[in-house]
């Protein structure tokens, strides 16, 4: 583990912690992994933590009274505390989920289930005349659940638009978010453009009209220092696998007063208080929202990922990616025919760059890059409306993380030029 004292990351030492970065691809090419926005690679510390859980403590959490069950439960609850602390929150407000998509659906279904739940849940009930506000830059995971919630309840979906420069159009805030608005759900950082959205003005407007705020922090918690109390939102969803953690675990932070009145989403074992044939009552949060045997090994791995990132220092992680994205924007600007979709400056911007190359479909750009060992994502990146907003069917996206270095950005730019040569558009 590389603990930093200077102002920047020791990328070479960090890379040594990631076994996968030593493999080659496509006939012996060095792997240049530029798809961390989709999922990050995992350091050996995370893999070891997960393996150790299975080797020493594996048992079903919150069940039984034997020693292994106690140890597994302790490990799981300690993991919850670590993940909560990583975002400055209390463990009692942190629900561990399968992923961020489940976290967001949990809130959406709690809101529609509120209609048939007890009196205290009535504050969450939506109906015709109410609105839910999202933005044009949302990942489908923070768009489709709200479309569906509106369809189920008769509420109306509205959205804030995106400027040509890839920023949220805050001019629309006062009109789009109005007294009918019950919830505003938006991305902290765009998974396509890297845009870091200003949270404070959105929260301020939401508070004026009495709306709840949910922040999709999938692309911010892994890359920026995020403090839940400072954000002053009501819900924060993020995934584990994008922040060096294992697949299959994510988190929902929710304001305690809200979690307490929210009816369950998925029901079954572990989330109950009492069960009779005639009906059941439910456990207090966060257990109310964690039915079934939880992914304890994955939670333990995620906690190890939080420890790893904390040791690096999230300020340094953010500074590293900020420098890389500045370098990438400069290098891509040197290539004629390349157009960046999103901010072309580094102000309030994370380490994700999407672009189109004149005359070459992104799928073909990606294929040439892949042939060179450069792994990027091509397509609409689960944000199809945003692609439409910019009049493109798809983009090529490079996304960076703690293990990305400048030579990999160079490999990307060289690969784009190679694609232009290959398709004869340079």
């Amino acid at each position: 583990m590389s603990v930093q004292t200077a102002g920047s990351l020791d990328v070479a030492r960090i890379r040594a912690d990631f076994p996968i970065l030593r493999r080659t691809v496509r006939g012996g090419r060095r792997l240049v992994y530029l798809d961390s926005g989709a999922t990050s690679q995992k350091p050996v510390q995370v893999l070891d933590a997960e393996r150790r859980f299975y080797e020493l403590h594996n048992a079903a959490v919150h069940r039984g009274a034997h020693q292994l069950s106690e140890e597994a439960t302790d490990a799981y609850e300690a993991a919850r505390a670590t993940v909560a602390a990583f975002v400055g929150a209390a463990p009692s407000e942190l629900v561990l989920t399968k992923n961020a998509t489940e976290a967001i659906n949990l809130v959406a279904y709690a809101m529609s289930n509120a209609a048939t739940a007890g009196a205290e849940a009535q504050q969450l009930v939506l109906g015709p005349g109410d609105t839910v506000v999202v933005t044009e830059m949302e990942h489908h995971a923070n768009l489709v659940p709200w479309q569906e919630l509106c369809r189920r309840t008769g509420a109306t979906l509205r959205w804030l638009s995106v400027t040509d420069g890839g920023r949220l159009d805050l001019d629309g805030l006062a009109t789009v978010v109005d007294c009918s608005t019950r919830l505003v759900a938006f991305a902290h950082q765009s998974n396509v453009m890297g845009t870091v959205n200003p949270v404070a003005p959105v929260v301020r407007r939401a508070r004026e009209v009495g709306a709840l705020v949910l922040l999709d922090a999938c692309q911010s918690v892994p890359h920026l220092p995020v403090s839940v109390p400072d954000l002053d939102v009501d819900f924060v969803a993020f995934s584990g696998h994008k922040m060096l953690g294992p697949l299959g675990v994510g988190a929902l932070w929710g304001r305690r007063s809200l979690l307490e009145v929210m009816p369950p989403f998925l029901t079954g074992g572990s989330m109950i208080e009492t069960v009779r044939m005639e009906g059941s009552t439910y456990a207090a949060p966060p257990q109310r929202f964690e039915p079934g045997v939880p992914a304890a090994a994955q939670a333990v791995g995620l906690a190890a990922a939080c420890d790893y990132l904390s040791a690096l220092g999230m300020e340094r992680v953010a500074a590293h990616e900020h420098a890389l994205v500045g370098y990438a924007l400069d290098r891509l600007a040197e290539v004629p025919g390349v157009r960046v979709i999103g901010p072309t400056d580094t102000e309030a911007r994370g380490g994700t760059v999407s672009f189109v190359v004149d005359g070459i479909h992104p799928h073909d750009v990606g294929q040439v890059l892949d042939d060179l060992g450069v792994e990027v994502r091509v397509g609409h990146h689960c944000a199809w409306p945003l692609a439409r907003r910019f009049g493109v069917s798809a983009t090529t996206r490079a996304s960076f993380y703690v293990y990305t270095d400048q030579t990999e950005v160079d490999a990307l730019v060289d690969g784009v030029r190679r694609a232009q040569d290959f398709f004869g558009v340079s």
Partner: protein
Amino acid sequence: MQLEQMYQEVILDHYRHPHHRGLREPFDVQVHHVNPTCGDELTLRVLLGPGGDVQDVSYEGVGCSISQASTSVMTDLVIGRPLPEALATGQRFLEMMQSRGEAEPDEEILEDAVAFVGVSKYPARVKCALLGWMAFKDAAAQAVTVKEQG
């Protein structure tokens, strides 16, 4: 370098100079197919002749070189053929694309489409190569129904 194996010259030729492109009248059925993983879209029209032959296939769409070229090749292989023969060719193409590069395609039947055997090694691109063929199969089936009802 495996790139040339995938992007054979015949594929790039069809991509740069697509055959039968553009939406034409008359037609029996129009379909719109998308590849939800990448956002490629294709609008395709089919006109069947009185004897059940494929009289015309016209199309418009956005997509990568593989999907565009494959659709162009497909029109060459189906226009003017009896529908059962065109669908059988489509089945042969599908089998080749599912072969992970192992197929030894029959050039007598598949003609320019044999060039796509290299693409079949890349699972993520197989759907691109099939987009036009699947749209044709769908439109042709609907056109048969329309004729039967008409």
